[in-house]
């Protein structure tokens, strides 16, 4: 057994343990993405970074040492986690509107936890398949709007009018506009509802709309 300190709380863990075990035993939490206890701890996502004796290491892969001083949260760590998550999200093909994971999606819950605004309202929306308002031909702004509101409007059956602002990723814009086009939503209807809260459309969004609706 070795003694370590997690945020100044002393715990005793078996010698072959990893930092994550000590953190959990001490009653603290670190955000996790790729780690699955007993199955996968290859430290590929780097979301679980902590400071061990001042050095930044992945909690899921780094073994404990006697007298180790572990910090699970500070400004620097938060920033690192956020950047790592944003980089991961940039490579993810966001199609929340027809994704079966929806409310069980770890990326969605992590984006809320870390304050990264890259995932649309569809990730929280309870309407699947034929229930989806866009699939019914209603210009709901769920695919373009930043998540975090728990999709309160679509939960009531009303359409999303984008009061939280749009997601920053241009790939999401392109995918979403294509989705509207496929479901026969007219450009005028879409622009009419987009301009309720976003009085001035970003130039890039307008370009994407032009491009998708041209064909």
């Amino acid at each position, binding site marked *: 057994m070795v003694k370590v300190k997690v945020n100044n709380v002393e715990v005793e863990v078996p010698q072959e343990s990893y930092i994550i075990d000590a953190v959990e035993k001490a009653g603290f939490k670190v955000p996790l993405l790729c780690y699955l206890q007993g199955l996968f701890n290859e430290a590929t996502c780097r979301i679980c970074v902590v400071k061990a004796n001042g050095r930044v290491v992945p909690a899921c892969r780094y073994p404990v040492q006697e007298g180790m001083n572990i910090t699970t949260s500070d400004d620097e760590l938060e920033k690192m986690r956020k950047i790592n998550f944003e980089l991961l999200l940039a490579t993810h093909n966001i199609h929340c509107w027809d994704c079966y994971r929806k409310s069980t999606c770890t990326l969605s819950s992590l984006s809320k936890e870390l304050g990264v605004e890259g995932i649309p309202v569809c990730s929280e929306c309870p309407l699947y398949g034929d229930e989806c308002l866009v699939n019914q031909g209603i210009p709901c702004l769920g695919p373009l709007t930043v998540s975090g509101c728990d999709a*309160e*409007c679509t939960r*009531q059956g*009303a359409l999303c*009018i984008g*009061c939280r602002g749009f997601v920053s990723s241009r790939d999401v814009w392109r995918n979403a506009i294509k989705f509207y086009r496929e479901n026969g939503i007219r450009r005028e209807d879409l622009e*009419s509802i987009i301009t309720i809260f976003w009085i001035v459309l970003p130039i890039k969004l307008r370009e994407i709309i032009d491009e998708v609706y041209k064909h």
Partner: protein
Amino acid sequence: MTSYRLELELDRVAGESKVNVYLVNGEVRVEYASQLSERLLERLVVGREYRYAPYIVARICGVCSHAHFWASNLAIENALGIEVDEVTAELRDICNKLQIIENHLVHLIFLALPDYCELEPEVITKAIKVREIVKNALNTICGRLSSPQPYTPGGFIKEISRLHIEKTIKSIEESTPIVDEIIEYVLSRVNPPSVNDPSPIYLALSSFPEKSVPINGSYVLVSNEGYFNINEENYLNYFNEVKPSYSNSKACVFNGKIFFVGARARLLANKYVELDSELLEILRSNPYSNIVAKAIETRYLMRDITYRLRSICGRAPRRNTPSKKNGKGLSVIEAPRGLLIHYYEVDENGKIKSANIITPTVMFAKHVEAAAETLVRRLNNEGNETSTLTKYVEMLVRSYDPCIPCAVHVVKVS
């Protein structure tokens, strides 16, 4: 004290407002000025499809957004000849009354009562608890308290389950005795200072506390000067809005006279609660007594809501469609602070051509000034200190419960 100028920045009111008191050579003048910047909501809806208008205007203010949402749906329904079924109308009315209770509780306990006594912690706890219950009831029907969107012109989008309605009835019934205790506490502590109402003209919807329904296309308003039939063609003949230079919101007169709206007006106009002659006289002549009227109204509405919820429990609302493409429509409802008027004109493409909103705070703005002038004149003649004057003027304005965010909804740009 021959001449002075006081600028009172008001706290404990919704939004930012200021009262300017001028005394020059014995002449008293009071200006009630809204300080929030203009919100151009009447222009924002123009050119958009009619079904999006309620979503936009509900964002006018978070304090009574359901009232605006309902009023705009109702006006559009009137414009397009959509008839709603009884259950829908009843459910919307219940939501409105829940919002009235929620607003009254917050105003009575947290905004107005600290003027009269020191609050006891138990009362605060009770008020927070009841507010939570009322909020949950509103969430059950509307989905959320602020900017709700559970229905569109025509009816509710989703059905509300019987189980949820039954749960709501139970929770409201359980909280009724607590509300009674709170109201008893308020009534025992509030002792309105005496000031004579300079313009005791009240105005309220004659159908309150029943639901707001137009009769032969007109809403009937009741005042101590008689009954008035208001519709989309003639409402501007009665309500005359002016824009004072010192304020960011408009002020309004009815038939050329300064009037007041709100809980006191509703109680005096419709007499739905039996009151003894002494209390009735206070309500008639004293603007401070709006707090008393609010307390009495809250007690009444708690029971009224339980009764109404029971009558619709198990019945599903229907959805109806428009019978015509264009038209003009007006709606008049009783919002928490008084009368609320919405007007819309829809063109043949289903787009809003013009819109007009007259809010309660705009309606009683001139009455606040007139009452404050009478008060300042009296206090000045009695030789009171400026600090006393400040205290009583602030108390007076607070008793009206002005709400600034929706009052500054539009200003004409010249």
